Structure formats: structure tokens, C-alpha cells
């Protein structure tokens, strides 16, 4: 029970299925109160003046007041301070929404298309979305989604989790959540995507994490896992002739422990090796040249499908 539950407007929000949802709703409750107070000051003040200073006779004179520096300073400065506070509060929540924890229990590749979602688990379990096949995730543990799209931009919105992320073609974006309780939660597409935009709904089903583990390992793998497929591709494309997997230095940087490590480039810039970095380096290797290595790698843009790239990334992630 917190003070925010006293604000009736918060009852319109969907159920709070994550810890972050509670935090978002607290900010929401504050914004409602701050808005009501501001509204009463502005519209209430206006109404009061309208009643008090209504003209009653034709020869009535108005006061001659042109400005008041002190009042004008106050009503510029006080809103500024409040706005900065709201910015900071929103920032704290935004950082949490955007930063997945280190400890991820399930990672699912989600591909959007007109008008469906496909989700693929690390062991190769794959589902083409329909109401019958909810996205199964563990309750009480963090799930990370890696999103992309086959055609136009879509957006993955889970009202109960207060989170949302666009799925952009040609790019990987990510989203994470940790449902507190087992349950079913609706997912909408919120980026307009054509005829059946409003029909593009799936459900996330959070189940107890032991059950999840059993479910995850139970059935025979539908296909090879993405990492396995990536390993095959790695061999086919002869990547190993330049990139070692045991940490030794050959023509290009080793793949061992690459994912998540810091990279320094020939032009002096730096980044952390995440999915988008790997994707770019595979497709257009010349975009970022690691310091101390020659720009020798061929361009694979147009030769690898999005799925191939995703598989390769999964394989590289598995080379610890």
C-alpha cells in the first residue's frame, strides 16, 4: 500500500506485473497530482478572476498594470525546477527499462512481420505467433528479447510491464522484463504497420521457473539451435581461417570472449561488442576496424540473410 494507490486515476493502468511497472505508476501518480495542482492554479485562478472582475457597468475602468518582474521570475523559475525533477525521475526509470540485468534467464529472438511475431529460443525452439502459442517465459527471472523485423517497423508493447520497443528492419533492438508472478500478459503492436495492425496480438505466458526449465528442455529440439547453425555457417564461410576461437591471434581478432568485451578501433573510437556491433562487423566489416588489425575482411552484405547473421551472432556469443 503506497500513497500512489490513493490516486484513482492510477487504477486505470493495467496490472503491475513487474517491479518497474510499480515505479512507473508511482511517477504517473505524481504527475497526476502535479497536473491537478497546476490545473487548479491556472484554471482556478482564471475562473476566480473572471467572476471577480466581470464587468458590471459600461464606464468601469480597468487597472493599469504592465508587468511584475518578481512574479514573472517566480512563474518561470518554479516550473523549470519542477520540470527538471520530472526529467530526472523519468530518466531513472528509463535507464532501468533500457538496461537488462547481467543475469538473464531466457533470451528470445523475436522477428516481426506483417502481421505476426516469430520467437526463437536459444536451443532452437521456434514459434510462429498465434493466440494458441503464447511466448513462454520464466516468472521471477529476467527475460531478454532481441527484436528485429522482416518488413516494416513494428513495436512490441506489453502494457502490464509498462515497456515497449520498436522492431526495426535491418537492425537489432532489445527489450527486457521480469514478470513477478505467473500469468498471461497481452502484447500489442504499436507501430502502425498496415491492414492488420490492430490484429497483431500475442500473449506472454509467465510460468514458474522450474516449470520453465522443464518446458525448455522437455521436447526434442525442433531444429538445430541458432548457435549450432551459426557454427556450421562459420565453417562454411571459412571464418576460422582469419578468426581463432581459442584466443590465439591470426589475421583478424579472435572470437573467444568477444561478445560483451570492449573494442578499440583504428580511428580511436571505442564501443562494447553487442549484437548490433557484431551484425555490422559481419555485414560491413570496414565500418569499424579494430586497432592493430588490417582491414582485410570481405563484405558479406547481401550474401547472408538476417537469420544467418543472427545464427552467427549466437555462435559467437557461445565462444566464451
Amino acid at each position, binding site marked *: 500500500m503506497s500513497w500512489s494507490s490513493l490516486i484513482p486515476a492510477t487504477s486505470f493502468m493495467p496490472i503491475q506485473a513487474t517491479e518497474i511497472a510499480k515505479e512507473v505508476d508511482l511517477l504517473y501518480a505524481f*504527475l497526476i497530482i502535479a497536473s491537478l495542482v*497546476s490545473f487548479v492554479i491556472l484554471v482556478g485562478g482564471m475562473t476566480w478572476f473572471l467572476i471577480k472582475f466581470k*464587468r458590471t457597468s459600461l464606464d468601469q475602468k480597468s487597472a*493599469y498594470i504592465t508587468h511584475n518582474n518578481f*512574479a514573472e521570475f517566480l512563474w518561470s523559475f518554479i516550473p523549470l525546477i519542477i*520540470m527538471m525533477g520530472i526529467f530526472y525521475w523519468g530518466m531513472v526509470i528509463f535507464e532501468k527499462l533500457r538496461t537488462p540485468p547481467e543475469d538473464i534467464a531466457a533470451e528470445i529472438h523475436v522477428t516481426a512481420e506483417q502481421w505476426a511475431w516469430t520467437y526463437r529460443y536459444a536451443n532452437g525452439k521456434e514459434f510462429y505467433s498465434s493466440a494458441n502459442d503464447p511466448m513462454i517465459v520464466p516468472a521471477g527471472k529476467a527475460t531478454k528479447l532481441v527484436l528485429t523485423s522482416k518488413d516494416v517497423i513494428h513495436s512490441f*508493447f506489453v502494457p502490464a510491464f*509498462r515497456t515497449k520497443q520498436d522492431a526495426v*528492419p535491418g537492425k537489432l533492438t532489445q527489450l527486457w522484463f521480469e514478470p513477478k508472478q505467473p500469468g498471461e500478459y497481452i502484447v500489442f503492436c504499436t507501430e502502425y504497420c498496415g491492414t492488420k495492425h490492430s490484429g497483431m496480438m500475442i500473449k506472454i505466458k509467465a510460468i514458474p521457473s522450474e516449470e520453465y526449465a522443464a518446458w525448455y528442455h522437455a521436447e526434442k529440439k525442433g531444429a538445430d539451435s541458432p548457435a549450432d547453425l551459426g557454427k556450421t555457417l562459420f565453417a562454411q564461410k571459412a571464418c576460422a581461417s582469419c578468426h581463432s576461437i581459442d584466443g590465439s591471434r591470426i589475421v583478424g581478432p579472435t572470437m573467444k570472449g568477444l561478445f560483451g568485451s570492449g573494442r578499440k578501433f583504428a580511428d580511436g573510437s571505442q564501443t562494447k561488442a553487442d549484437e548490433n556491433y557484431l551484425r555490422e562487423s559481419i555485414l560491413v566489416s570496414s565500418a569499424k576496424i579494430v586497432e592493430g588489425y588490417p582491414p582485410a575482411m570481405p563484405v558479406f552484405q547481401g550474401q547472408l540473410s538476417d537469420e544467418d547473421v543472427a545464427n552467427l551472432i549466437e555462435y559467437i556469443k557461445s565462444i566464451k
Partner: protein
Amino acid sequence: MSSAQTKTEHGHTDHNYLNHGSGIWSWMTTLDHKRIGLMYFATVSTLFLIGGFFALGIRLHLAKFGATPLLEPDTYNKFMTFHGAIMVFMVIIPGIPAFLGNFVLPIQLGAKDVAFPRLNLASYYIFIAGAAIAASSMIFNQVDTGWTFYTPYSTAKTSNGVILLVLGAFTMGFSSILTGLNFIVTTHKLRAPGMTMDRIPLMIWALYSTSIIQILATPILAITLLLIGAEKTLGVGIFDPDLGGDPVLFQHFFWFYSHPAVYIMILPAMGVISELITAFSKKTIFGYRAIAYSSVAIAAVSFLVWGHHMFVSGQSTLAGLVFSIITMFVGVPTAIKLFNWISTMYRGTVTFEAPMLFALGFMFLFTIGGLTGVFLASTGMDVHFHDTYFVVAHFHYVMVGGTLMALMGGIFYWFPKMFGKMTSDLGGRISWVLIFTGFNVTFFPQFVLGAMGMPRRYFDYLPEYTNLNQISTVGSWLIGLGFLVGLITIIHGILKGEKASDNPWGAKTLEWQTSSPPPHENFTTTPTVTAGPYDFR
């Protein structure tokens, strides 16, 4: 002043701009800013009725009365696109500047006309040409992208009708730029003797700030729209990832124009409100400089906030935060304006004719629109609200509740000057009650729908959203009825209105110092200005 004047027995000149030339040709070839303003009035009103028809269609469909949906999904998407594109590009953007601005700006400055009258007429025809091209997309190859034309949907996945709509918007952009240029030069070069920059009415400050945005931002839209056309016809591959492009780049380009465009819509409205509040409070405006400079400040900041439309687009967290903090700055000059208007009423003598009711309606609705904007500017909050009905409600409160309320107020305020006749005050008040009530009934429930999670641009929705959607639809009928009453009141005023005096409201700005309607060149003798614009001493 050379035009021959004949005085009637009532002391009015019967030679005015309306009868300066006669016949349709004299209107079509007129260089008089007042006539051009009225031509925009007729054009924009017609387009508004068409855009309103689509709005009512959308709402009727979403009421889900009966078992079968009113519209097919594709038809619904087209209705939604036409409603947005018409209302934004052809009604709200040109509404106040091109119509009221054209009519009022030169008279308020004590000028005979705008600086470039021929260019002004050309702007009008360019607007007509653009609107015609855009309208042809409604007939051939209908468009279903939404008014934002997001790629790659617009370039790779829908009909070529997009090219026509985009070309129409591109063409209308020239009209917008030329009008803005005309206003800036007029403001700098044609002010009456004695009218220094700190004596120009606040309407002019608002139009001036708007013009700066129009000149600087519209070319970006033009280039972006051309790139869409090039992508679709030539496959140049700037936005389509299949061709190696970046779809999010389009959003950067698009909002770099379209966010400032929001202020092209609202700044002139604020100018109108400044005029109305002071005239109907019979009191000098409070904080003239603060209001004037806050217009310029809003115009400046408007260029730095476009990324707040893209918090969940995949742009970096840091970019999101930078755009969020800059967006918060917009709240300050906006608050300054609201406080100044309210202070203007303090110890004034306030009357409540129809234009003032619309001004008060503006303040009420704009306050709600502005405060809910803070919710959306806050990153952590916006992630939930982004692309839901909360956004729909917010921008309708700002753009419709703000701009259209001001436009209606402005029409009833300047009507006596335009036509030399009065509108029925009762008609104006009834129109106001219906629009104001209907507006809140329509859009307030949408804040709740958004909080509940209902996404925008949805043809269909979950059962729990039904009640609020039905309330919203009923509200839309009240708005429609309100505008119908407004239209009847205006037409009745033109045909049968009582004769207006030169200054029926007792206002102080220059347009009220000439006859109603004004002569062809606005003043029989050039006025000399000796004090500020609102000197109610």
C-alpha cells in the same frame, strides 16, 4: 491616399475592399491581402469539412454499434490517413497564419498590404495546387500510411498513391515558406511611423516567430518528401533496409520538420489569444515583453526536441535523455504565457462575448494539453504511453483544443472587420458550448484508454475499451454539431448580420482604427503610432 472616398450619412465609407472590384475575376486576380485571406478562409473551411467527415467516420466505426464493422480495415486506414493529412497540412498549419494572419497582419502594422502582394497571391494558388494534388491521391491509389509516412511501410509496402500525397504536401510547403517570407519582410519594412518593434501587437510577434519556423523547417520536409518519392520511383535506398538504407533516418528527417510544425500550429493560436484576452478584459496585456520573447523562445527550442517522438525507436538511451531534457524547457515559455494571460484578467473588466468564450476555452483545453505533454516528455513515462490513445488525446487537446478554439475565437473577433457586419452572439455562444463540451467528452476518455494501453491507429480493440470508445464517439457528434452551428452563424452573419461599427469590441490595435470593412488600402491616411498596442489607460 488617393482613393476617392464618399461618406454616407452614417459616417461610414461605402467604398471598401469588398466592393473595390466586382465579379469573380476581380477576386481571383486580387492582390489585396484581405481578399486573399478570405479566399484562404473559404478554402480551409471546405477542407476542414472534408477532414471532419473522415474524423466522424473513424469515430463512428470505433463505436462498434451493431455487429458488423462500419469500415473495412484498409478503408479505415485510409480514413485515418486522410483525416490526419488534411487536418495537419491543409487546415491547422495554414489556418491561422494564411487566413487570419493574411487578413490582420498588414492592418495591425498600419501597412497598405504585405510586402510582396503578387507573391502572396502566388502562395494562395500554390496552396490550391498542392491541395488538389494531395486530394487526387484520395481518388486514385488511395494512401494508408498515416500522415507521418513512416518508412519502409510508405516506400516498400503500400501503393504509389503516397507519391501524390507527398507531392501535394511538398507543393503546399512552398506556399508556407513564401507566406512566412512575406510576413517577415512586411513586419520589418512596412510598419507605420512610430510603430517600433516593441509596439507591434502580440499577434504579429506570434506570426513572426511562426514565419521563422516556416522558412527554416519546411525545406527539410520538402527534401524528406522528395526522398520518399525518389525511393519509391527510383529505389535509391536511403530509408529501405533492403536497399541498404536506414528506416529510422526518415523519422529524424520527418520530425525535424514536423515537431517545429506543431509550433507553426500553436504559436499563431497563442497570438490570437493574446489579442482576445486583452480586448475582452479591457486591460493592458500583462508582461508584453515576456509573451513576445516567449514566442521567439518556443520557436528556437522547437528545433531541438524532435527526438522525443522516438524514445522507443531504437535510438540510444543518451539521445532519448537529451531530447527529454530539452523538451522540458518548452514548458517554461508556455507556462509564462498562461500566467501572463491570467494576470491580464486580474483587475480588468471582463466581458464574455463569443470570441472571449473561445479564448477561455483555449486556456482550459490548452492547459490540459500542455500538462499531459509533460507526461510524454518524461522518458520513463513515455515508454508506456508512446503510440497509445494517451498521445492521441494529448495532441488533440493541443492542436484542436488549442488551434481550432483560437481560430474560431479569431473568426468571431475579426468578423465585424472582415465583413462590416456582426455575427449573432447567441449563435457563437451555442457553437462554443457544443464544441467545448463535445471536445472534452470526445478526448478526455482517450487519456484513460491510453493509460489502459489501447494503441492508436487501431481498427479493432479489446472488449474492455468499448465503453470509453462509445462515449468518445458521442462526443464527436457534439463537436460536429458545434461546428455546424458555427458555420451557420457565420453564413447568417455575412448575409443578414447587423451593421458593425468600426470598433465594436473597443479594442486598441490599429485594425480597429480604420473602417469596417476597411478600404482597399486599409487606411485613408497612414496612421501614426505613439504608444504600445494595448494602452487601456
